[in-house]
Structures are given as C-alpha cells and as structure tokens.
C-alpha cells in the first residue's frame, strides 16, 4: 500500500517548487520576493504532516507503529526521519528569511534562487528517509546540485565564481569516490538496501575490497561534512558565496551529510563497526584540532566561521569515534548525542551567520578589525553577535554548553577505554582554543575603538530588513531557551534514537 501520509512532506515540497517557478514567472519586477514567500509557506506547510505523523500513535483510529516503510523498505519514515526532516525544513525557512532581504537588495536573480534553495532542502528531506544506496545518493546529489549554483550566485564577483568552482569540483569528486565505494559494497554483498548489506556484511567483512568500499564511502561523506583533510573547499566556499548561502551550506548541507553518514554507518555497516570506528576517531581528532587552530589566525569573520564549522563537524563525530566498542545501547546514546549536537548547532550557527550579515551591513566590512566599536553604534547587532558566538563557544547558560555536555557524556560512556578518554581530552582542549577566537570577536565589537574608516553615520541608522530580524529573533530565542531548558531540543534528540531499517 502506498502511504500518502508518510510521503506528504515530500509531495508538498514538490508542489511548492512548481508554485515558486510559477510565481516567479507571473510576479512583476520588484515583487519577486513573493516567490520566496511562497517557498516559505510551502516549507512550513510541509512540516504539518510531520506533526500529525508524530502524534499519530496517540490518536484514535490511527494504528501504526510509528515506523512507515515504502518502496520495499527503501524509504522509511521513523522518528529519526521525522526529527531530521523537521530540522531541514526549519533550516530552509531560516535560510529563506536570511536570503530575502540580501538577494533583493543586490538585484540578483531572485525567483530562481528561492527555487534552488527549496530544491536543496527537498534533497535533505529525502536523505533522512533513505534506506538504500541509490536513494541516499540521489538525495545527496539533490542537496549538492542546487547548492553549487547558489554558491556562484553573484556571477560578476570573482570570489563567488571561485567559491562555486571549488565547491563544484570537490563536490563531484566526492560523489565519484562515494559511488565507487557503493559499487564495491554492492559488488561484494549483492545488495543495495541497508538491511541487505547489514545481513551480507558479516561474510565479507575481511575482504579487502569490502573494507576499501566502506572507506571510500566514509571519504565521500567526509567531503560533505567538511572533515579534515577533506575540508579545504569549505572556508573558500563560505567566504566567496553569498552569506545566506554560506549559512545554508554550513547547516543544511552539512547536517544532510551527517544524516547520510550516521544512517549508513549505523544501519548498513552496524555489524562491522571495527572498520569505520577507528577512522572516525582519527577524523574527529584531526578535524577538531586543525579547524580550531586555523580559525585562530583568520581576520575575515565569515572565513573564521567556516573553520569554526569545520571544527564543529569534528565535535559531532566524537560520539561515534568509539563505535567499535559500543553495544546497541551505546550506539543509540551516540546517535542521541550527535543529533542533539546537530540540532543545537543548526540554530546557533544560522544565528551566527545572520548576526554576521547584520554586522557586515552596519560596518560595511567583513574584516574583524573594522568591527571595532560596533557595540557602541549598533548595540542590538553586537548583542546578537555576542549571544551566538558565546553559544558556539559552549558557554552556559547558552545552548552550546548542552551540545558539548552530551558529546562528552557519550564518548566517556566507554569507561576505562584509553582511546575514549584521549579523545575527550583532545575535545576539551579544543573547546578552550575555540573560546579564544570566539571571544576575540566579542572583545573587538564591545571594547575596541571605532576605526577611522567606519561609515558610522548613515549605515548605522538603516534598520535591519524585517526578515533578517525575524530570523535572528527566532534563532536567539531557541539558543537562550534551550540553554536554560535543554529538554526542549534533547526531547527531539531522544526521539531520533529510533533509527530503524523498517517495521
């Protein structure tokens, strides 16, 4: 039976995409923002079936187990998928809010921009449910394909071109590596569904070609989540791309990569954790350290956020690093920790990019030294900057501390393991290094003098665009409230433990 309820979010996004193109065609010049509004409404509407599905087990006359499988188990909607789909839709909404004012002001092609952004969100939504290699790959490419174009949206700008070309070449290279891994795994197990690979993996676990396939798949995803040493595209792309696109890439596209990585390694390769566990350990340690150390010497704030998001990818990997020693309860704990981290990271990083956009429009520059005295002539924007940057650093009572807390808890649960403790120590040292460069931004903004070149008089009085203010308010609310009541997002992270192969 075809379950229209379960696939309703994807169908609604599909209709929304057509409407966005239609509205863009009909709207007169100057009113193209209507296409963005349609995309926004569509993404919000797509979240309603998620709520009804989540509530379904409590409703009378609704008899499902909370896990809905379609297409022979290739497409599964479980609680993990519901939580992540909700996060992707919300990321899409906030990215659209960040974009509307930015794109309108600089007279780029507007309708197409919103279309591509919503299309990329659709790919992420599909990835959360993918339970076979082909669906996973198609979802991943649907996330990346539109994102390549969005990164190069400022066609006349050399940096935007460079951002798009680097992102594109690295993106297709990683896709090819990922696919080669998939074809090897398929060739040895004879299955493309995660359940089939899991069943067949025990027999071939010692085959070099199978191990090579698993490693190639990990490398493919490592590019997507910008883990060191596959991160070098990320800072360049974030810096050159339009800032709202960089915000989307650092959250939507990166979380989609993590969803693919977590679901394939837990579901398909759950029986051979001794192959991929140590690799993730190494990736996590190197990614955290290098990301944070290079971020220290950046002067461009968006580039610094690029390296900071590389470092955060390392933190998210930490709970999985000890996977080889975990039992199934331990794996669930790792999923809980990583997803909770990603949920919190999504809000604070989108907020941080929004605050940086506001600060750039006030100070007229993206270089940190030019931001001196921002706290005096734009106290609101400076306040948001402080809020999000301290949250990224993990300072209580802002949401970031809880993300770090569950991460440490999950990796230390393998008590007595030297490797687990070592990684926790590396993560702790990194948290301190990170505090240094986040705090440096806040110090410049509040304590330094206004530089001679700052265009204080006119720009400071221009109010923020309403959509940017709304996005900032929304993310700031989540960051502050989650900091005081971590249960708000931990509840969803907890629900995401139900990552299943099907009913």
């Amino acid at each position, binding site marked *: 039976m075809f379950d229209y309820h379960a696939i309703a979010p994807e169908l609604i996004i599909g209709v929304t995409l057509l409407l966005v193109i239609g509205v863009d065609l009909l709207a007169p010049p100057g009113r193209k923002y209507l296409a963005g509004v349609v995309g926004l409404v569509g993404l919000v509407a797509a979240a309603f079936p998620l709520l009804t599905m989540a509530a379904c087990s409590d409703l009378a006359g609704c008899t499902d187990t909370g896990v809905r499988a379609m297409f022979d188990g290739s497409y599964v909607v479980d609680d993990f998928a519901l939580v992540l789909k909700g996060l992707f839709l919300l990321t899409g909404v906030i990215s659209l809010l960040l974009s509307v004012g930015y794109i309108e002001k600089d007279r780029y092609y507007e309708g197409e921009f919103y279309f591509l952004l919503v299309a990329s969100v659709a790919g992420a939504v599909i990835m959360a449910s993918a339970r076979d290699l082909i669906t996973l790959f198609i979802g991943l490419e649907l996330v990346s394909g539109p994102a390549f174009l969005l990164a190069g949206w400022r066609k006349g700008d050399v*940096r935007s071109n*460079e951002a798009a070309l680097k992102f594109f070449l690295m993106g297709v*290279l990683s*896709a090819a*590596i990922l696919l*080669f891994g998939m*074809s*090897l795994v398929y060739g040895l197990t004879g299955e493309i569904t995660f359940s089939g690979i899991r069943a067949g993996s025990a027999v071939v676990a010692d085959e070099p070609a199978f191990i090579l396939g698993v490693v190639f798949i990990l490398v493919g995803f490592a590019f997507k989540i910008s883990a060191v040493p596959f991160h070098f595209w990320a800072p360049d792309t974030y810096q050159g791309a339009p800032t709202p696109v960089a915000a989307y890439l650092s959250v939507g596209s990166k979380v989609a990569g993590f969803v693919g990585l977590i679901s394939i390694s837990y579901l398909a390769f759950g029986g051979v954790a001794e192959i991929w566990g140590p690799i993730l350990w190494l990736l996590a340690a190197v990614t955290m350290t290098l990301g944070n150390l290079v971020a220290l010497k950046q002067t461009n704030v968006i580039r610094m956020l690029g390296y900071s998001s590389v470092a955060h990818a390392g933190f998210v990997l930490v709970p999985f690093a000890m996977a080889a020693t975990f039992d199934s309860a331990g794996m669930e704990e790792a999923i809980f920790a990583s997803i909770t981290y990603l949920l919190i990271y999504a809000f604070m990083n989108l907020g941080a990019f929004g605050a940086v956009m506001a600060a750039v429009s006030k100070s007229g520059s993206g270089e940190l030294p030019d931001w001196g005295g921002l706290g005096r002539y734009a106290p609101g924007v400076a306040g948001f900057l402080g809020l999000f940057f301290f949250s990224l650093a993990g300072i209580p009572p802002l949401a970031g501390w809880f993300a770090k807390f569950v991460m440490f808890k999950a990796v230390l649960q393998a008590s007595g393991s030297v490797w687990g403790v070592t990684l926790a120590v590396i993560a702790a040292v990194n948290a301190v290094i990170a505090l240094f460069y986040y705090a440096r931004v806040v110090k410049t903004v509040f304590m330094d003098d206004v530089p001679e070149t700052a265009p204080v008089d006119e720009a400071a009085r221009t109010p923020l665009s309403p959509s940017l203010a709304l996005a900032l308010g929304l993310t700031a609310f989540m960051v502050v409230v989650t900091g005081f009541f971590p249960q708000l997002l931990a509840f969803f992270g907890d629900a995401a433990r139900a990552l299943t192969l099907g009913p």
Partner: protein
Amino acid sequence: MTVTPGWYMALAAVLFTIGASGILLRRNALVMFMSVELMLNAVNLTFVAAGRNLNVLDGQVSVFFVMVVAAAEVVVGLAIIVAVFRRRQTASVDELSEMRG
C-alpha cells in the same frame, strides 16, 4: 581465455585511478571535470559487472541513476565554468586563488 568479472573490476579500478590522477595533476577546470566523468564511468562499469555476476538487476538500475545524475552535474558544472571563463578568460584553477589561508 574467458573474461571473468574480476577483469572488469580491475579495469574499473584502473579507470578510477586514471580519473583521480587527472583531478590531482591537471589544472584546467574542464579537463578536471572530464576526469570526474571518467571516475563515474569506472563506477558504472563496476556496478554492471557486479550486477551481471550476481544476476540481480540492482546494479544495472543503479547505473541509470548515476548517468542521470552525471548529466545533471554536467549542466551545473558547465554553467559555472562558463561563468568563470566570462569573468577571467581562463579556465585554469591555478588562477583562481583570491582566497587563501
């Protein structure tokens, strides 16, 4: 001598390596992009050989998806390369180094 699936796998591995070397060694964006296509074709060969060997159609079906995605990537990639070329009159990636550090 019969051609066993192992030979196809070996050929695919060689093609993949040639493609990967092309990415690393060549500096023209178009040639790098062609190298990626070579890698994707190595993937296709592996999928088909494995599917034929196992007698299940999943592999052949996967190839169709890979080809469609590769075609979509050509559209996106050529658009970006043309945009770069219009701005700078070159498609060499060594010239694209505005951002460093």
